[in-house]
């Protein structure tokens, strides 16, 4: 039986949050440009091409099977015109988050890898649900899936001892991490993720999805998106893609199931597509880091 730790004071959490890493300067700059309606594709291309690693990654990603464009895209401007500003920002955010996962590992490397696989599985599931339901911006769903558990990474890096207690409690009592966090911390990774999203100036939509992916009904005008992430989380857990820190498959949220309207008869096709895309993107992203 795990002993419950005394609650961490809110001021300590805020201090921890202030210590959180900022996004790489280039990605911050790109976010600013994307948010400015006066920016042109040329402005954006100039900032990206200043960074050779980002340039190479961007071109590799747009030419990957993930996007499936018929012809090769060889210039950054070409990629921007084709994908649009938001998609470019999302792409770069994705690779930066991957760096954060990869660079932070010491003790709990395996747990982090598992969480990365879980996040990627959720991102792919969200994207597939999005294209299945003809959601307009499936890029956003992908990034939201990738970042939905970012609060867990923060806890893992900045409160390693406490987080270990959380995972032990989740394992021993067979509960979700969020339930164990409530008992030990009196807050969850969703709140921590929300604070990080604020610090990174991420769009409101993304912040709401991260904050309410366990309670989509509280996400206001983004309840559909938060619901899609909740459902995506269920699919990637059922398909045993990595681990979110516990060994549970959450219950189906009946309201979300009705709202997303996939239909039971389409589950076979949808889940097979998730499995296929997950394998593709996983091998691509792993190789892209070499």
């Amino acid at each position, binding site marked *: 039986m795990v002993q419950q730790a005394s609650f961490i004071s809110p001021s300590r959490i805020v201090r921890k949050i202030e210590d959180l890493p900022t996004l790489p300067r280039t990605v911050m700059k790109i976010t600013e440009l994307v948010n400015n309606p006066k920016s042109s594709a040329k402005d954006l291309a100039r900032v990206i091409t200043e960074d050779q690693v980002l340039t190479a990654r961007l071109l590799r990603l747009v030419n990957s099977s993930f996007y499936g464009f018929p012809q090769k895209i060889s210039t950054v401007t070409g990629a921007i015109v084709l994908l649009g500003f938001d998609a470019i920002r999302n792409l770069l955010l994705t690779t930066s988050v991957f760096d954060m996962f990869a660079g932070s590992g010491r003790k709990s490397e395996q747990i982090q890898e598992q969480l990365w696989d879980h996040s990627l599985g959720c991102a792919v599931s969200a994207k597939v649900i999005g294209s299945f339901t003809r959601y307009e911006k499936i890029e956003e769903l992908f990034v939201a899936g990738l970042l939905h558990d970012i609060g867990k990474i923060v806890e893992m890096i900045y409160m390693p001892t406490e987080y270990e207690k959380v995972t032990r409690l989740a394992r021993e009592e067979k509960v979700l991490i969020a339930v164990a966090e409530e008992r030990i911390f009196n807050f969850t990774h969703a709140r921590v993720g929300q604070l990080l999203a604020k610090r990174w100036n991420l769009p409101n939509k993304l912040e709401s999805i991260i904050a309410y992916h366990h309670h989509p009904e509280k996400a206001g005008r983004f309840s559909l998106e938060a619901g899609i992430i909740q459902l995506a989380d*269920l699919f990637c857990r059922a398909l045993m893609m990595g681990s979110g820190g516990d060994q*549970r498959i959450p219950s189906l949220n009946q309201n979300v199931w009705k709202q997303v309207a996939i239909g039971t008869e389409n589950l076979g096709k949808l889940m097979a597509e998730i499995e296929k895309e997950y394998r593709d993107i996983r091998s691509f992203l792993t190789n892209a880091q070499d």
Partner: protein
Amino acid sequence: MIRKNASELESGMTLAKPVYDMQGVLLLKEKTLINTKNIQVLKAWGVSRVWVEGEATDEERDVENLEKRDLKAIEEELTQRLGKEDLQDPVMNVILKTAVKLIAERTAH
């Protein structure tokens, strides 16, 4: 009845069970005589294994038993991760069954 990998199929073999794609659409009927054309169809639709008529060797029987055990083990593992009430939910049941099948295929690769 023997289970064969698509790569092991030869012209002249007879299908012992109908073949469906991932979405449950019938590709080839039971008793279809295998020829090079329908081997290509199976490969194109990503069908990895089919049942053909004939006697299984001991080795093939071992492989088949192992596959059944794998499926059972995956199903048990997933069931443990669900709440009891979730198993009563028809949608969750389909999710569970589909996941078992996909995970088994993943591990067989």
